């Protein structure tokens, strides 16, 4: 029987990471991620977590330290937000190209300027092409469960890539609700130990790591890295199923479809906005609208086939982006969904929405408005900004 407690998203992340028993944790505090570091430090101080925990002097050092630890064969954890992620970019990219299965929570916070500390996934979305896996979650239970699944996915022999579990600053990081806590013994059995063979700093197994490499060989590394990203598609789905069999909760794998079975129109969401959007779908259904929702859970690898399949029967769709793609005049997710659909040969009207930047709320009323617009779409439209009246 799983116990439960009442906790905010940061505590769910800290407990979830602790259940995976990382050998080394290095992190630097930044709003809204700070409590994750505080909780983990407390767990170590209380003796309930045996990790080597370092409060380093910057995010650059945090990522460098977990990189070194992972190279030495350790299971590792770190967490950051926005400007902290920006500061660690150099070792961030290297962690993926070194194929190190580091787990990092990104507590999504808008990028400056102007100065802001509030939510928005512009930080992690902006580094989506750095070779990491990226999963975006909807509530605190999903934070807890995905922290655990993250290690299973990242350490899979066919993947061996670092992974971000991304959750909205304040709307989840500081939101308090009931969360079930998986049993430690079951998590131990589910994850096993991390035993690297592909890259290891071990005097008894000498290996050249990261020497100066010519382009021909580097291209081979990139080819294999892209292949590992594609392998992760199946591994994420299998991990979701295995987790469900042990702990009783499934999130649908790469995407979650909500009331899509007979839907003529679709709204696509990601992260904590999904809850209000599901309410709006139910409201619209009561008013005779044939609408469903697709929640994008995994941004990297991009679940192209799942998106094509989910949208195969709709007359039109809209995407609510809590981020911007400079130069495209839309959000990033909208562009990626359209890229996926090009291959399917099905072209339907689509509407890009942008809202909820810098901690702004994506309210039920905004979602109802978005659905109304999607259900009357006969052609693709310019970006619609969801704003307070």
């Amino acid at each position: 029987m799983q116990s439960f407690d009442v906790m905010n998203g940061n505590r769910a992340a800290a407990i979830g990471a602790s259940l995976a028993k990382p050998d080394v944790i290095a992190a630097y505090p930044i709003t809204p991620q700070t409590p994750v570091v505080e909780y983990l430090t407390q767990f170590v101080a209380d003796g309930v977590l045996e990790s080597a925990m370092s409060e380093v002097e910057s995010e650059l050092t945090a990522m460098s330290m977990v990189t070194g630890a992972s190279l030495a064969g350790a299971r590792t954890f770190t967490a950051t937000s926005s400007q902290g992620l920006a500061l660690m970019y150099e070792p961030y990219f290297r962690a993926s190209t070194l194929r190190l299965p580091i787990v990092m929570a990104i507590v999504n916070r808008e990028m400056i300027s102007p100065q802001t500390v509030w939510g928005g996934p512009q930080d992690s979305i902006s580094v989506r092409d750095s070779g990491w896996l990226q999963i975006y979650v909807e509530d605190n239970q999903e934070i807890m469960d995905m922290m655990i699944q993250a290690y299973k996915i990242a350490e899979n022999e066919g993947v061996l890539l670092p992974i971000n579990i991304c959750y909205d600053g304040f709307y989840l990081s500081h939101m308090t609700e009931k969360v079930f806590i998986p049993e430690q013994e079951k998590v131990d059995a589910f994850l096993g130990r991390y035993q690297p063979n592909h890259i290891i700093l071990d005097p008894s197994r000498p290996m050249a790591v990261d020497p100066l490499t010519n382009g021909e060989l580097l291209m081979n590394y990139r080819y294999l890295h892209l292949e590992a990203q594609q392998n992760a598609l199946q591994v994420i789905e299998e991990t979701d199923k295995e987790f469900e069999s042990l702990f009783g909760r499934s999130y649908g794998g790469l995407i979650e479809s909500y009331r899509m079975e007979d839907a003529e129109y679709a709204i696509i969401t990601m992260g904590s906005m999904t809850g209000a959007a599901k309410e709006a779908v139910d409201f619209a259904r009561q008013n005779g609208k044939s609408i469903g929702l697709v929640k994008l859970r995994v941004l990297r690898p991009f679940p192209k086939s799942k998106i094509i399949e989910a949208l195969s029967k709709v007359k039109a769709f809209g995407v609510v982006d809590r981020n911007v793609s400079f130069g495209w005049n839309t959000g990033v997710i909208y562009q990626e969904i359209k890229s996926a659909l090009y291959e399917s040969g099905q072209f339907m009207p689509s509407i890009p929405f942008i809202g909820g930047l810098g901690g702004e709320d994506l309210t039920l009323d905004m979602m109802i408005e978005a659905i109304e617009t999607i259900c009357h779409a006969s052609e693709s439209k310019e970006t619609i900004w969801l704003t307070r009246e």
Partner: protein
Amino acid sequence: MNEIKEIRLHGRGGLGTVKAAESLVYAAVMDGIYANSIPFFGFERQGAPVTAYLRISQDPIRPKNRVYKPHAVVVMDPTLMKAVDVFEGIRENGIFVINTALDPKQLNIDPKVKTIVTVDANSIAMEILNNAITNTVMLGALIKGTGWVSLDRVMDKAGELWGEKNRQAVMRGFQDAKVTNL
């Protein structure tokens, strides 16, 4: 209680507004129902206005949003009435819980409010806690005015978080709060 009940709490940094909302979530969950709370503050500093949003329901709660149309509003510090529109969006027949030594008739109350709960939380907090941190007293008053979560659970959580005196402060808030139906 079939629909989601929405509450907005107004406080100032240092008054324990966010923790008060979390205590209510805890109480609701232990009562076997559902709740969530989301705080909203600017740059964290003592004395700045802080808002916490709370939802309580018989069913799981999906929205992770602020509260715009509260069924109940709690004001931890009466001086906030001058700084913030505490009645913004309050529903018809709303419940208004305020820390004040004044009589309800002396207050400038929005006409949508049906039930006013008044309690002199500053005096009670000074008496029991020897400081003017009013959150636990106000929790008692809110429970008296709404009955949406159980007093015992909130008292237990207050005791766990802040000690026996705060457990008593919840009880005193409940006992001393005056409920006036307009």
